[in-house]
Structure formats: structure tokens, C-alpha cells
């Protein structure tokens, strides 16, 4: 009885809530074992709950607030794949950070993960907004965790972007809700092939605002800097945590609400291309990863924009795979950071001697992101490429994606392992990463390989399972496909070696590379310092207009009525007498002549 009820309860509760709930106890966990139990147990329960979810029944769990129905749990195949990825990532992160004893960071990381998981499973705009903001709030602590002046400032910038995103979503949601009264995505528009994706018409009230909000979180071009700004400033675990959830949540939201929106194709295409240039010259390897993250998300956004069943599958699959291998890459860089204190390419090299396992896992991650066949990237990215290739109108896009693939291969697949673990010997001989890190990396690497070798496992979970199966059966392993990818790989490798050999590889800029970030990092202070004088003026005005009036009127009045002023000088009675005569004359004149 109780077991049944427990199972029922588990099946009807948003899995994210378990993680959130577990997170609340983390700060109070004194012993390592309890901590480990919480960090891994929370996601584990969530996983159980998710797998137990009884199909796609709607409105499993609703709550009425202020007259709006909040759908707290509404799983379907789209959210399932994202949720699964998030839960796994959350567990990996938990394991990865076990060596640290930072209650704040652990608990907020878990809150963050929980909020992200919850976000993909809630069924309405308001709940989405709440979870959206929760991820923002919880994630900022990852940026703050190093506890330096720098990180505090970066955190503020990060938070401003995240909250702006949330506020745009809020504004859009409010506008949409007030116009349509509808909050549940499942009821907004007819589903595409039985699955509610791309439910929102861009012409709907507030839709543009919502899209902009999603866009910030997805790090659309021009508003992407928070990502490159914040991620490299985190602790070794922080970047791992951050890389897993935020942008992918945005991708999920874009897919859910805006799949098929043509703008997204182009935005995504641009996103894939432009980080390549920065990534190539960037010195800080974690920042390189951040750029590459941007680029990878571009693929997903592009796929969402294409919006066919295959494309949506591709986006979801790529997101899943990406979470794993990007986490793996960040973990390996985190291990390097943890052991050497830096991730600057110029300061590293030759670490494979003492950190073999880390090197191995990093290579798995690099292979995955490079979409080497039999690694997870290949399985996912192919689907996106095929989707874009399928539409002749998108040929240019396909070319762009191809170029970006080469680029990512170059900077993430080759540059990172090469500079960190091989390349010129920096002389550093750090210890191998701690066991918990290795374990997390190992699990992630195993997943990357598992998916790459046996894509059916992942494809099962994809939104359009049937389409995915067909793709697996007929397209994935075809020769041209595999060959094309291998060619790309080989030529990129050759190019890299050639350039390196001829010393033509662009030098890593040792300083800070500012792109549009300039606007925020330099422009904002300039703006504020330019505005501060008028603002202070404004403040003085706003605070002191009472004093101003007081000064003007009071001054005049004081002149007149002060004891020696003209209006209060003692009037001799003769004047009063004359006044009385004058008044008499006045009244007389009025009375007589009117």
C-alpha cells in the first residue's frame, strides 16, 4: 500500500523537485558520506521518478495560484531527453565536486540543477518563468564561488544578463497571458505530430519578448558575453556546473515554444561560426571551451529553427550529447586547474605524463565534440547536418555549419588536448586528479562512448522516436556520412599541424580578448561615469527640490517677513489710519458707483 503510494507519488512529482529538496539539506551535511549521499542520491531519486513517470498523461500535478493553473509536472518525450541529460549531469557534477567542502557551492549547484530539471518538466509559462529565474539565481553562486573581487564583479555582470533574460520572459509571459489568458503550452497551439513543440507564434503578444529572454540565456550573438565572461572565472567545478544547464535549458525552451522559427536558423548559423575565430586565438582554455559551447549551442538553435521532426530530434540529441562531452571537457580542464592553478595554454603542456587518466578522458571528450564516429558528437551532430542538408534552401546554412564543424574540431578537438597535455613541455608535473574527479570523468566518458557506439540507446529517448529510428536505420552509418566526417577531421588535423610546424598558428593573445563584451565591460563603466554626474544631479534634484523651493520661496518670504523685512516692520498707526481711510474710500466708491 505504502509502497504503491510512494511509487505513485514519485511518478507524479516533478523529478526536479527531488533535487531541489535534497539541495536544501546539503549546507547542513557535516559528514562527507551524507554529503555524497545527498549529492548523488537526489539525482538518483529524480531519475527513478522520471523513469517511473506514467507515460505522457497531462496535468499530472497542477496548482492554482492567482487564478492561473500552474502545471508543475508535464513530461513528454521532448522534456524527457533534456531532463534525463540534466539529471545525469547533476549526478556527475555531484561526484565531481565531492573533493571540495564548499557547502554554498554544492547546494546552489544542486539547486541550479534541480531548477533546470524542474524547468523542463513544468507545463506552463509561469512555472517556467519561476524555474528560469531560479536557475539564474542559483547559478550566480558558481561564479561567486572563487570569492575574489574579480568574481564578484563578473557575478554581477552574469546576474544582470540572467535576470534580464528572466525579466524579458516575465514581460512576455505577462503580455501573453493578459492577452490570451493561456499559460499551458500544451493548450496554446496544436501539437506537431502529437508533440507540443514550437507552440508559440512569433506574432503572438509578448512572443518576441519571450524569445529575447530565451535568446539571452541561449547566448545569442551580441548577448553571449556573459558566458565567456563568467565561465572561466569559476572554480574548477563551477564551469562544469554552469556548462551543463543554462544554455541547454534555453535550447529546450526554444524548441518547446519556437521550433520552426526561421530567424533561429540564421541566428544559430551565425552562432556556430563567429566563436570559432575567438576560440582559435584565445589563450585561456576554459574560455576556448566557453566559445565552443557557444558554437555548439548554435547547432542546436539552428536545428530548432529548421524545426522538422528530424531537426528537433537533432537538437535534442545534440543537447544530450553536448551536455556530456562539454561537461567532460570542462571537468578535465577543471582537473588541470585544480592541480596546476591555471588553464592558460601558454603556461601548460606535457601534462599527460602525470595525468594520464585525465588526458585520456579529455581526448574522449575532444573526440566527441569533434564528432568522430563512434563518439557521441557524431551521432547527434549528423542529425542536425542532415536536417539542414535536407532543405536545399538552407544550403548556405549547411556550409556554415560545416565550416563551424571544422572550426570546433580545430579548437576544441585538437587545440585543447594538445596545448594542455602535449605540446611543449611546461615542466609542470602535477598529480593525477582526485579520484572523485576521475570517476565523474570516467562516467561521462563512458556515456560518450556508449552513445557513440550504440546510438539506439539515445535515439530511443528522442522526441520523435520513429523518425530517429528511421534515421538510425537508413542514414547514420552510411558511408558518405562517415567519410565526410573523417575527411573533415583529417584535414583539420593536417591544417593544425602544418600551421603549428610553420609557426603560422595564430598566437594566443595572452591578455583579455574582448569582443562585444567591450560594450559591457568598458562601455558600461564609461556610460555610468558619464551619467553619474547627471544622475547625482537627478538625485540632488529629486532629493532636494523641497530645499530648492524652500530656498527660493523661503528666501523671498524671509526678506519680506523677517523682523526687519518690509512686510513686518512695525506699521505706525498713522499708516493704519490712512489705510482705514483708503478702505472706506474703496467701499464707498464701490457702494456708490459699483
Amino acid at each position: 500500500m505504502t509502497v504503491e503510494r510512494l511509487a505513485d507519488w514519485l511518478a507524479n512529482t516533478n523529478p526536479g523537485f527531488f533535487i531541489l529538496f535534497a539541495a536544501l539539506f546539503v549546507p547542513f551535511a557535516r559528514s562527507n558520506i551524507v554529503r555524497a549521499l545527498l549529492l548523488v542520491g537526489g539525482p538518483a531519486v529524480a531519475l527513478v521518478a522520471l523513469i517511473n513517470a506514467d507515460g505522457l498523461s497531462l496535468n499530472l500535478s497542477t496548482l492554482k495560484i492567482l487564478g492561473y493553473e500552474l502545471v508543475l509536472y508535464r513530461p513528454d518525450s521532448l522534456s524527457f531527453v533534456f531532463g534525463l541529460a540534466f539529471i545525469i549531469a547533476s549526478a556527475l557534477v555531484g561526484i565531481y565536486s565531492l573533493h571540495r567542502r564548499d557547502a554554498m557551492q554544492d547546494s546552489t549547484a544542486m539547486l541550479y540543477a534541480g531548477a533546470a530539471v524542474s524547468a523542463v518538466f513544468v507545463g506552463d509559462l509561469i512555472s517556467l518563468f519561476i524555474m528560469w529565474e531560479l536557475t539564474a539565481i542559483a547559478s550566480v553562486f558558481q561564479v561567486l564561488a572563487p570569492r575574489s573581487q574579480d568574481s564578484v564583479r563578473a557575478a554581477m555582470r552574469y546576474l544582470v544578463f540572467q535576470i534580464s533574460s528572466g525579466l524579458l520572459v516575465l514581460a512576455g509571459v505577462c503580455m501573453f497571458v493578459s492577452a490570451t489568458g493561456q499559460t499551458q503550452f500544451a493548450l496554446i497551439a496544436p501539437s506537431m505530430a502529437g508533440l507540443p513543440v514550437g507552440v508559440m507564434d512569433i506574432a503572438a503578444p509578448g512572443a518576441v519578448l519571450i524569445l529575447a529572454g530565451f535568446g539571452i540565456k541561449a547566448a545569442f550573438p551580441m548577448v553571449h558575453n556573459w558566458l565567456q565572461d563568467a565561465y572561466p572565472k569559476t572554480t574548477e567545478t563551477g564551469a562544469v556546473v554552469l556548462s551543463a544547464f543554462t544554455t541547454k535549458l534555453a535550447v529546450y525552451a526554444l524548441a518547446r515554444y519556437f521550433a520552426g522559427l526561421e530567424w533561429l536558423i540564421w541566428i544559430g548559423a551565425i552562432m556556430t561560426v563567429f566563436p570559432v575565430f575567438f576560440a582559435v586565438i584565445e589563450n585561456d582554455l576554459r574560455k576556448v571551451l566557453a566559445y565552443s559551447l557557444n558554437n555548439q549551442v548554435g547547432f542546436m538553435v539552428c536545428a530548432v529553427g529548421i524545426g522538422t521532426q528530424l531537426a528537433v530530434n537533432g537538437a535534442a540529441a545534440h543537447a544530450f550529447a553536448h551536455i556530456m562531452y562539454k561537461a567532460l571537457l570542462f571537468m578535465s580542464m577543471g582537473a588541470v586547474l585544480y592541480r596546476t592553478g591555471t588553464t592558460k595554454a601558454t603556461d601548460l603542456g606535457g601534462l599527460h605524463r602525470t595525468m594520464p587518466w585525465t588526458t585520456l578522458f579529455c581526448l574522449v571528450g575532444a573526440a566527441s565534440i569533434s564528432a568522430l564516429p563512434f563518439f557521441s558528437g557524431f551521432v547527434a551532430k549528423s542529425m542536425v547536418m542532415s536536417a539542414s542538408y535536407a532543405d536545399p534552401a538552407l544550403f548556405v546554412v549547411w556550409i556554415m555549419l560545416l565550416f563551424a564543424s571544422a572550426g570546433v574540431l580545430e579548437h576544441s578537438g585538437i587545440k585543447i588536448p594538445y596545448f594542455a597535455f602535449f605540446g611543449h613541455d611546461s615542466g609542470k608535473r602535477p598529480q593525477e586528479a582526485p579520484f572523485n574527479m576521475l570517476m565523474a570523468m570516467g562516467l561521462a566518458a563512458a556515456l560518450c562512448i556508449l552513445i557513440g557506439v550504440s546510438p539506439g540507446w539515445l535515439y530511443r529517448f528522442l522526441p520523435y522516436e520513429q523518425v530517429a529510428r528511421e534515421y538510425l536505420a537508413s542514414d547514420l552509418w552510411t558511408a558518405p556520412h562517415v567519410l565526410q566526417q573523417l575527411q573533415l577531421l583529417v584535414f583539420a588535423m593536417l591544417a593544425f599541424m602544418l600551421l603549428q610546424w610553420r609557426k603560422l598558428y595564430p598566437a594566443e593573445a595572452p591578455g583579455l580578448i574582448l569582443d562585444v563584451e567591450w560594450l559591457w565591460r568598458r562601455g558600461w563603466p564609461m556610460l555610468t561615469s558619464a551619467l553619474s554626474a547627471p544622475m547625482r544631479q537627478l538625485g540632488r534634484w529629486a532629493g532636494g527640490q523641497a530645499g530648492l523651493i524652500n530656498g527660493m520661496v523661503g528666501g523671498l518670504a524671509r526678506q519680506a517677513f523677517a523682523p526687519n523685512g518690509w512686510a513686518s516692520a512695525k506699521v505706525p498707526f498713522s499708516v493704519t489710519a490712512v489705510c482705514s481711510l483708503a478702505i472706506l474710500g474703496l467701499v464707498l466708491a464701490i457702494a456708490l458707483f459699483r
Partner: protein
Amino acid sequence: MNGGELLILLALTLPLFAAAMIYAVGRMPDVRETLTLVACIGLAIVAISIFVRVGQGDPPALTVAEPLPGLAIAFRVEPLGALFAVMASVLWGVNSLFSIGYMRGRREARQTRFYICFALAMFGVMGIAFAANLFTLFLFYEALTFVTYPLVTHAGTPAARRAGRVYLVTLVGASVLLFLPGIIGVQSMAGSTTFTPGGLLNGRVDAAAGSVLLLLLVFGAAKAALMPLHGWLPSAMVAPAPVSALLHAVAVVKAGVFAVLKVSAYIFGPDLISTLPAATWILWMAAGSIVIASLVALTKDDLKTRLAWSTVSQLAYVTSAAMLPMASGLVAGGLHMVFHAVAKITLFMCAGAIYVATGANRVSEIGGLGRRMPWVFVAFLAASFAIVGLPPMAAMWSKFLLITASFGSGEWFTAAALIASSLLSLVFLMPVAFRALFSPAGDGAGGEFVRPGGTPVTSLVALCVTAAACVVLFVAVEPLADYLAPIAAVSFMETAP
């Protein structure tokens, strides 16, 4: 005398009685403060009983006197007032707890007068909350001004006296020049000033007269600190922190917006408001207030002043809510009144706790302090989130409702101001907690604690309680909103799709 009348009478006389008793035992601080706490608890119980009765559809009413025909001192509780009373009385208790620590920690002079004035202020607040007509409201509204004056000038310094003068002149000046004329106008148009569901003036005035009255009444309630009548609020920050906390975040300023809400709901009514051009003008003014005050807050280094400017901005939210030609705006306003109060009192208590422990009152002095005062700054952080309107803080709901109502009534300008102000609040509030908690130690003038042992425990408990309340109310918003629904004659259950 039935139970309802007795309850109202109790709510009014309890603070008075407490004031007298505090005066009597003024020489014994322990007894005095115990007495204050007992009174707080008593008043809270009474207020909650009234709250419950109103919820059961049995609103207490009481008529005390009728100086002139048609001009009665009368009380009649409605949901908004009951909520206001509960909020004020409960927070009085919390704040008293805080005050004990603060005042002792600072070794402040004239503590007996301080507690007496607080009790008297509660008397004013109860009267305002339960008033059955504008005249009665005005009566207690003025009383509140006068009894809080000694609190503003508590320090007795020339600066405090100057601030006190600004306080009095602005508040009473606006009352006399604007509010009272407005009341008289209402009386002469409608023949009474009784708060009537659906709007006393509805159908009795034309757009021009209604607009003038609305302007008079809204700006006359200068406690709502709508620009340009906001100057008193930042300058009143010379007062001790508990005063800023309870009065200038909760009781006094909320009395102002409460008056605005009451006027909107019961004197004009949503139907009339929607036809008045002045409502739109006020909305613009409020939007300006929201943004300008937030911008000014950015430039302030003094923590309490920064918070005060934020209050100016937040109060304009409620004023906006009252002016929206949409019934649900009123509910949003009522909710925001409460949620903001809880958050702002936390912030002020934190500021006080910092000051009492370290003597620091500037944002630039608090870097790294969070390591030694984690609870204070975590509470500060939580309350900051609430001010910005982020989940899981209750203020998110009111802001959400408010923005929805703004869009729903086509006032995108207000919505934009709300959004912008949220972002600005983020920018001026977050760095405070971040710098304290996450900057390396010794960033600012950390130094030794001025008071050995740091923040007094009672103060700490108080601010943690309210910080927690910010979160708890997030979950409890639904019953509160349902409770308030009658004031706007809307039911969320029915009107919402």
C-alpha cells in the same frame, strides 16, 4: 457591544494602553521591553482575530462619534484593512524584538519615549487600517505623522531636527493642502466619505471633477512618497534603524499606499478609475517615480538611504497598482504592500544589525563583512531577491500580477518601468550582499566589531524571521489573494481563464 466592536476597540486601545504602561515602567528597561513584546503579541492576536472574522464574512464595525452630521469617526474592517493590520502588528512584534537588541546595543538615549512612540504609531496604524470612511482614515493618518515625528528626530541632532521638519512639513503639508481638500471635495460631491465597495463616487462625478479629486487624494497621501512628494523619506533615514524598518518600510509608508488603495477601491472604484484621465497621469508619474528613484538609489553609498530610495520606487508600484483601470491591479497592490513590507523591513533590520555591530553604514565599508555576519547578509540577500521580485520570494507574485494587469489594461509604460526597475534594483542591491559575502576579507573597513559579540541575538532572530517569511509567503500567496479578492469585486477563480 458585540464581539466585533470589542475587537476593534481592543485593537485601538491596546497600543494606547501599552504606551501608558511603558511610560509607567520606563525606568525598568526589562519590564518595559517585556511589556512591549506582550503588547505586540496581544495586538497581533487581536488583529488576526479580526482578520479571521473578515474572512468569515463577519466584518467588525464600530462607530465612535459623529462630530458633525455625516462626518463620523467610524470603523469597519474590510479585507485590505485586515491584512494591513495583521501585517503591521506582526511586524511590530518582530521589529520590537529587533529594537531591543538594537537600542541596547547602541546604548541609545530616550528609549522609553522610543517605545511609547512605537506603540502610539501602532494605534495610528490600527485606526487607518480599520477606518470606515476617509475622514476617520485621515484622522489616524495625521496622528501617525505626529507620533512618529519624535522617532525621526530621535537623535536630537540638528540634522535630525532638520529631517524632522522636512518630514512634518511634507507630510502634514500635503495632507492639509491636498488630502484634506480632496476629502472635503468627496464629502461635498457625495455627501459622505464612507468607503463603499464599487466606489463611492462612481456615477456621481464627471471626469474633470473626478480627476481633480483623484489627484488631490493620491498626492495628498504623501506617505506613499509618490514623486515629487518623496523627499521626506530619504531624509527621514536619520532615524534609528528600527524606525526606518517598521515605519519607513512598513507602517508609515504603507499607510500611504494603503490610503491610495482604499481611495482607489472604495472611493472611486475600478469602473470610475478607468474613465479618469488623471489615473493615467498618475500612472505616468508613478512610472517616472519607479525609474527615477531606482536610478537615484544607484548613486547612494549610504545603505539606508539607498534602501529608502528603493522604497520610493517600490511604493510607486502600489500606487500604479491602485491606478490601473483593472480590478486585479488592486489585489496586486494589496499583495505587494505586504510582500514589500516583509522584504524591506528585513533589509532595514540588516542595515541596523550591521550598524550596531560594526558602525558601518556605507555600502563601500562592508566588503568582506559577510564572513563574520553570515546570517545577516544571507537574510539581506534573500530580501534583496524579494525586492527585485525573483522567485522564490513572494514579491514575485505581486509583480507578476501587476505587470499582467498593466499589459492587460494597455499601460505598457508601467510594465516597462516595472521591468526596468527590477533590473535596477538588482544592480543596486545585489552588490551589497555579494561584496559582503564573497569579497576577500578586509576589502572594506571590516575592523573590529564596535559592539563586542556583533549583532545582538534578538535582532538576528528578528531579521531571520522576516527573511524566512519572504519565502513562506511565496507559497501562501493564493489564500491571501483570495482573501483580498472582494476589494476589487473580482474572483480569480471566475475571471481568470
